[in-house]
């Protein structure tokens, strides 16, 4: 199954295998944390599904690993892409009837043709619920909550510090508390 593509800037499939089995215990825990975080609010996939699909794509070459990107970041990015796709599809299939499943020639996506671009109330509610679940992890840490609020709005650290009045030192300290909480919450069963 060798697929050496190093000259094109992508790792081979064998490289992917080696990279995965070479991950340290700490890296595996990080990977699990990321997969569990990423699966929050997804309509169907669990964290195991996400990770398995990401690895499957890497191992079939459907998703190629750029050698310049750390392996863990590559898997994280692949899971992000899979999760985004799942959310997008969930938004796109707001109303389906069984007759919609009938394909004319059996070769095209049956559901992609039924695009409804607005987010469904259900999906919005699921996202809200998933977000609340994450926020509740930090219910006793106002500074961590301020950072989360900033992240939710896509703000930069400097913007979060400016709006919250946190010094860079306090910001870093709150970040470390977040990291510890995530490790405890998502790195264990």
């Amino acid at each position, binding site marked *: 199954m060798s697929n050496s593509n190093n000259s094109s800037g992508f790792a081979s499939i064998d490289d992917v295998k080696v990279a*995965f089995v070479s991950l340290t*215990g*700490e890296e*595996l825990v*990080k*990977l*699990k944390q*990321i997969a569990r*975080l990423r699966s*929050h609010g997804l*309509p169907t996939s669990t964290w195991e599904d996400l990770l*398995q*699909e990401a*690895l*499957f794509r890497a*191992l079939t070459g*459907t998703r190629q690993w750029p050698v310049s990107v750390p392996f863990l970041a590559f898997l*994280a990015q692949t899971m992000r892409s899979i999760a*985004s796709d*799942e*959310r997008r*599809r*969930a938004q796109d*299939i*707001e109303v*389906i009837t*069984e007759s919609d*499943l*009938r*394909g004319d020639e*059996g*070769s*095209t*996506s*049956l559901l*992609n043709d039924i695009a409804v671009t607005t*987010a469904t109330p259900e*999906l*919005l*509610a699921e*996202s*809200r619920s998933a*977000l609340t679940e*994450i926020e509740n992890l930090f219910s006793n840490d106002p500074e961590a909550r301020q950072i*989360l609020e*900033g*992240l*939710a*709005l*896509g*703000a930069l650290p400097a913007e*979060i510090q400016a*709006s919250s009045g946190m010094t860079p030192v306090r910001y870093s300290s709150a970040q*470390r508390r977040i*990291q510890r909480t*995530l*490790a405890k919450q998502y*790195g*264990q*069963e």
Partner: protein
Amino acid sequence: MKKSVNEITRLQNTIDGLEKLVLDSTFTNESFDSLEQKRTETEMRHIFAASAARAKLTMEERPAVAPERSSPKGKRQIPLTVRLREFAMMLHTRPDIEPRLQAVFESSSDFDDLEMNKIIADVGKLLSQQESLPIKAKSKKSNSF
């Protein structure tokens, strides 16, 4: 701070930010005992083995990785695995069907992960032998499983 964004974007942004924190963390084993660490490693090995098994089947049957979304006729072609997922998601949005499907799964309570992975791999193999996924639409009056 700025702009208002909908809940889906807020969730996505939050997870993106937290993911970066996880990747950047200088995490040590302080939070985990060795048993926990072992369990994670075992879980990960199983996930990797399942992915590798699926990948092997796919690669055996399609030795050359074909362009994912184009057919010989130049028409848009979605891989069967993706279409299966779409079908599963469609079921998820159909409250009238999902409980019945759920009942089918629940009646098979003795499935474990390995068996499920094998079933998934077998279904994938079966489907990849066909050119398309023939989903037979049932009439609205008789859509029971």
